[in-house]
């Protein structure tokens, strides 16, 4: 709206009425009657009365529409029509016509039940519609129509009824005589308006005889533009092809009728016309061969244009395209704020923000115009109050500067601090599209703070993201207030923080709060690099602990009691970390309870800032003190190796023993299971125990906290299991919850004997990744690997469809002002949202934390 003052008053569509087109209406809305199948004359201009007639709009840039005088961009196109020589049946209404023919009298056109019953049924339908809605009415109508069908004698005129059958797709047969569309139409005409509600037809918008076409509307040329190939040849649209067929056959039929050709010929042509009209409407009718191109591929006609994902409705109407958007590879930049996005220069000169010229800002905007469109920060276009858009070029610059006055709009380049929307597909939740402040940076990638990766589910292995620049004040205001990153910290799914520290930030803070003791100087340096400039909270001693450094970031009156990942207590009192280490469960995503508690006490802006500082501090710590994953991290001392060997041996013995007892038939089955099942579960148990024991051995031997262990313990990345797999053994490969049992007859791989039940022949990998896998072990690892790949590949479309259905069903459900939850029919779904009206994104993990409030009040004194 802001771009074009002309459009400040706009119309609102209140409702859309659906109905059938009557022949009269078709004629009225048409601008031309099509009489010839020819498209162009010798010079290549559209023929009058042909399918490309310029009365129906134009597709050539040079021509003008003969109806409205508009050119290519101005004229939307107009309908034409053809008079069909003989009527044909509309394929989409065949079943309705069939029902009508069977339920009405062939003589008088009344429904085959008494007057009283008609009235009663119509009343019933009205009532159902009122009470239960249109859908219930449709069901009722179907039920009633089924009752009326195939009654033998008309109660109104006493005429005997004959059985009418439908020969698919479009032929009606009465008894054994074919009913021509003319006869069908005549019968439909006889049905009275007042009887129509009985069949669910609204006589005001649809008369049954309109379902038999006598006139065919021709869609505007603009709807079926032809493409000019490189060779200069014209290639017509599928619809034009089909319409050509219709007009041609129609003409032939007409000529033959006039010439008085034999019945059979007319009949044949008529049927051909019916075929063409049918395929024009729908080229996928079950009983008809689809109309094809010369190349053999089926034509895309009306129904195919509307239907499915790439059809008009889902692709063009429900899906919109935007200008002022950009897309590029993303890369991390921890030095920018969480709600900033680094925009490359190139993008910033192409993406513009419209700004209206006023007395106050005219000089400021003139600066941009002076810079022009190539020099940043500049401007690309100027829009005059009458809506004319002018590009700022070196030649026009002076002239534009001269005429610029309040009321003009300048489209200036994107500047630091402009609000933009940032998005990564798949956009599965609302945090997939958030508002950031632009920060113009060199190079060509979009930059984002790694702390906001999680809501976008982004990483930097080549991911690309999109950027949109809102163009109106309303859009900018909504983006800033509703979509800003800091408003999205708490997930509406589970009520915890979706933003927080990841990876290095967690390891860094863990390292800092657990081990480090630094000279004050270094501590100040760290904090400064993390962006903190107020260091008054740092105690004035020669040497400060990491805990004290971390505490500088916390608000002075913040008190928090929590547990760390290893179960130890984390205690923060009055903004000082007194006890415990900071790890994933305090500052991580989806679990950061400290973050949640900060958010509750100090609000989004403060929390948001603190997250930024904490995450930066972690990274800075690692920058200074270093962290490397060493190959030797997975080394084990000799005695540990021996221990693991023993464990393996013991497990093997146990399994062999089990197998022995089983083979002797002495294995006592568990209740409700067979002996085989019991054996399997015992073996699995024994082998899993072995791996767990190996894990314990590793843990026992890790006196020194290596980088790998640090990562694991802080929760930054990897689990203990991954380390065990690297240094001790990979363990049992499970396929669908069982040991691997597929492959050859009686065995898994040809390396083993038949009916071998031993661990190694059923997917137990006793080697570690570091040692390297044996060939058979490698196969087993590949089996489970492939299985999980397949699982993901099959799951994605399934869950996508589920999501689509949910979104479609619930899109209009909202909370009303009386706190009820209603849908668009105004039907009440819930009297109070979630039974207590609590908004999950305002709650703490979905609940009101009574315990916290009590504790706070008790400690207050």
């Amino acid at each position, binding site marked *: 709206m802001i771009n074009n003052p002309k459009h400040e008053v706009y119309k609102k*569509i209140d409702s859309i009425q659906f109905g059938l087109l009557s022949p009269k209406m078709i004629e009225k809305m048409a601008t031309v009657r099509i009489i010839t199948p020819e498209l162009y004359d010798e010079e290549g201009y559209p023929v009058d009365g042909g399918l490309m007639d310029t009365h129906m709009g134009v597709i050539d840039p040079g021509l003008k529409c003969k109806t409205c005088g508009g050119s290519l961009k101005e004229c939307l196109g107009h309908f034409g029509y053809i008079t069909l020589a003989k009527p044909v049946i509309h394929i989409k209404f065949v079943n309705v016509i069939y029902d009508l023919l069977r339920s009405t009298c062939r003589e008088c056109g009344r429904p085959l039940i008494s007057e009283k019953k008609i009235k009663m049924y119509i009343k019933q339908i009205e009532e159902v519609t009122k009470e239960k809605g249109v859908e219930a009415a449709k069901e009722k109508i179907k039920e009633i129509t089924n009752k009326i069908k195939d009654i033998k004698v008309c109660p109104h005129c006493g005429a005997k009824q004959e059985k009418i059958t439908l020969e698919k797709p479009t032929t009606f047969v009465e008894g054994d005589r074919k009913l021509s569309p003319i006869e069908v139409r005549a019968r439909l005409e006889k049905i009275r308006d007042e009887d129509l509600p009985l069949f669910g037809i609204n006589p005001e918008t649809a008369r049954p005889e309109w379902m038999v076409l006598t006139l065919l509307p021709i869609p505007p040329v603009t709807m079926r533009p032809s493409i000019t190939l490189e060779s200069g040849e014209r290639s017509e649209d599928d619809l034009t092809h089909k319409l050509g067929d219709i007009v041609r056959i129609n003409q032939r039929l007409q000529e033959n009728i006039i010439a008085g050709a034999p019945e059979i010929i007319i009949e044949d042509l008529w049927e051909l016309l019916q075929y063409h009209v049918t395929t024009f409407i729908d080229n996928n009718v079950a009983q008809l061969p689809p109309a094809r191109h010369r190349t053999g591929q089926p034509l895309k006609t009306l129904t195919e244009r509307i239907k499915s994902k790439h059809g008009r409705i889902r692709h063009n109407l429900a899906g919109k395209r935007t200008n002022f958007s950009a897309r590029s590879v993303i890369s991390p930049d921890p030095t920018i704020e969480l709600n900033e996005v680094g925009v490359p220069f190139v993008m910033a000169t192409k993406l513009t923000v419209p700004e209206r010229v006023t007395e106050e800002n005219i000089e400021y905007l003139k600066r941009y115009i002076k810079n022009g469109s190539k020099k940043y920060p500049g401007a690309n276009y100027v829009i005059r109050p009458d809506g004319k858009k002018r590009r700022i070029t070196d030649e026009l610059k002076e002239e534009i500067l001269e005429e610029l006055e309040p009321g003009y709009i300048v489209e200036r380049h994107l500047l630091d601090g402009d609000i933009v929307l940032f998005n990564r597909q798949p956009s599965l939740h609302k945090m997939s599209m958030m508002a950031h402040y632009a920060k113009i940076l060199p190079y060509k990638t979009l930059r984002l703070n790694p702390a906001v990766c999680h809501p976008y589910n982004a990483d930097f292995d080549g991911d690309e993201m999109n950027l949109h620049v809102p163009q109106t004040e309303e859009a900018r205001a909504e983006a800033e207030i509703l979509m800003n990153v800091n408003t999205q910290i708490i997930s509406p799914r589970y009520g915890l923080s979706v933003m927080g520290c990841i990876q290095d930030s967690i390891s860094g803070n863990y390292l800092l709060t657990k081990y480090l003791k630094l000279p004050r100087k270094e501590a100040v340096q760290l904090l400064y690099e993390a962006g903190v400039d107020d260091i008054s909270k740092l105690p004035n001693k020669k040497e400060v602990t990491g805990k004290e450094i971390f505490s500088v970031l916390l608000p002075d009156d913040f008190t928090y009691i929590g547990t760390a990942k290893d179960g130890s207590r984390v205690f923060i009192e009055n903004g000082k970390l007194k006890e415990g280490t900071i790890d994933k469960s305090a500052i991580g995503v989806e679990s950061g309870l400290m973050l949640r508690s900060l958010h509750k006490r100090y609000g989004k802006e403060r929390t948001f800032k603190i997250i930024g500082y904490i995450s930066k501090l972690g990274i800075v710590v690692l920058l200074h003190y270093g962290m490397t994953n060493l190959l030797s991290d997975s080394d084990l001392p000799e005695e540990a190796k021996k221990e693991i060997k023993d464990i393996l041996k013991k497990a093997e013995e146990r399994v062999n023993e089990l197998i022995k007892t089983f083979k002797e038939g002495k294995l006592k089955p568990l209740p409700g299971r067979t002996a085989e099942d019991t054996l399997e579960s015992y073996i699995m148990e024994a082998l899993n125990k072995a791996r767990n024991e190996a894990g314990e051995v590793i843990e026992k031997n890790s006196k020194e906290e290596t980088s790998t262990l640090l990562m694991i313990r802080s929760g930054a990345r990897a689990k203990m299991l991954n380390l065990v797999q690297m240094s001790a053994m990979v363990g049992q490969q499970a396929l669908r919850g069982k040991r691997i049992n597929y492959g050859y007859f009686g065995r898994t791989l040809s390396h083993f004997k038949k009916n071998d039940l031993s661990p190694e022949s059923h997917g137990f990998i006793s080697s570690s990744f570091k040692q390297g896998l044996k060939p058979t072990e490698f196969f087993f690892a590949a089996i489970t690997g492939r299985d999980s790949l397949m699982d993901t590949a099959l799951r994605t479309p399934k869950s996508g469809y589920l999501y689509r259905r949910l979104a479609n069903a619930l899109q209009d459900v909202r909370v009303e002002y009386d*706190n009820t*939850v209603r849908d668009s029919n105004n039907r009440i779904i819930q009297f109070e949202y979630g039974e207590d009206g609590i908004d999950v994104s305002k709650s703490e993990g979905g609940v009101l934390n009574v315990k916290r409030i009590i504790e706070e009040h008790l400690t207050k004194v």
Partner: protein
Amino acid sequence: MTAEQIIKEYSKELPEKIINDLLENLPKKISDKKVKEIVEEVVKEYKEMQITPAESVGIITAESIGEPGTQMTLNTFHFAGVSEMNVTTGLPRIIEIFDGRKDIATPMMNIYLKKPYSEGKDIEKVALRLKETLLEEIAQEFYINIADMSVEIQLNKEQLDKIGLTNQDVINSINKGIKGIKVKEKDNTLTVTKKQETDNLNEIYSLKEKLKKVFVTGVKHIKYVLPVKREGEYIILTSGTNLKDVMELDFVDSTRTTSNDIFEVEKVLGIEAAREAIIQEVYKVMQEQGLNVNIRHIMLVADAMCAMGKVQGITRYGIIREKASVLARASFETPMKQIMQASLMGEVDKLNSVVENVMVNQPVPVGTGLPGLAVKVIKGRIGGYEGEKDEKKSKAEKTAKKEIKKEEKKTTKTKTKKAKSSKSKNKE
């Protein structure tokens, strides 16, 4: 006044759960003043947590369930390692529930027992009493005697004793199961003949097949039973459900017994129970998969599915069909069908939900698009800021305004535009 009484005073303002939380967590020794302070703080926070009107909770719910869908496993999980007792979980189960499928892949029940059975008394017997037993399970063999045109059934005495049946019981149930036959007994062999004699072998053969499936004892449809001890109590898990018959048994604790077949729950216990069943079942799957989804989202879906008084799936035959808007239905599935039907009925799309408005480029009526602005427009005044004006004055103003406008038109184009726009804005 005790703390309890003080809290009870707020029972109108706070939901039951929070009140219970308060009662549970308040320390025993506490002054009345403190209690009041705390409760008031709770009320304040509760009010702050309330959902904002116009919030599009539907979309949030869809996102909250749809987004973790990508993280769920596809595998059905075998329960207790027995192939007869596996249960569908993960994504397939969620899809099954939301589809509103009438026959689910793995129907099962959790049957709680009354004391003393819940303590393990006769647990095996109780379990067998529940299991559906067919004739083929207690018979050793079925023969067809061509000479007599009869079917001979040799019973398995051991099996019969285990279940606690006599031969007469079996004969009775055969007579009950199939009409028009005669059963004779001779040391553990039952001879079944048709009352009307026949020499058609096919008939006898089909009789034999029918006999195999004759229901002898137990509860119908309960295919498999497994007693387990859970939280110090014996319960019976079954494969196959029959809620109605099981609940009628005297040793079953019918208040806690559940079935995972939502339609059966609806039929037996009503729509509210079905809603609860949907919530429980979906929540259980989410928990099993380690996904953190708030129960409010699941409640909303369950409520939407049950809003019409019967369980409807989230499909084009279920709740999506109920949508008032033609375009909303068309944008989901089968657009042609929807449009054709709408044109016959002369349906009017009032454009009061989301997609339709997206289609016609208008603001959607959820969130910030929902509230409207009501402005009192006083005729003849541009601003309408002061109360009523007498008609004469307003008329005079009108004409004056017209004149001003005319003049303006003459002077500059832009200024007229401004005046016009400000006028239209006020009207809006």
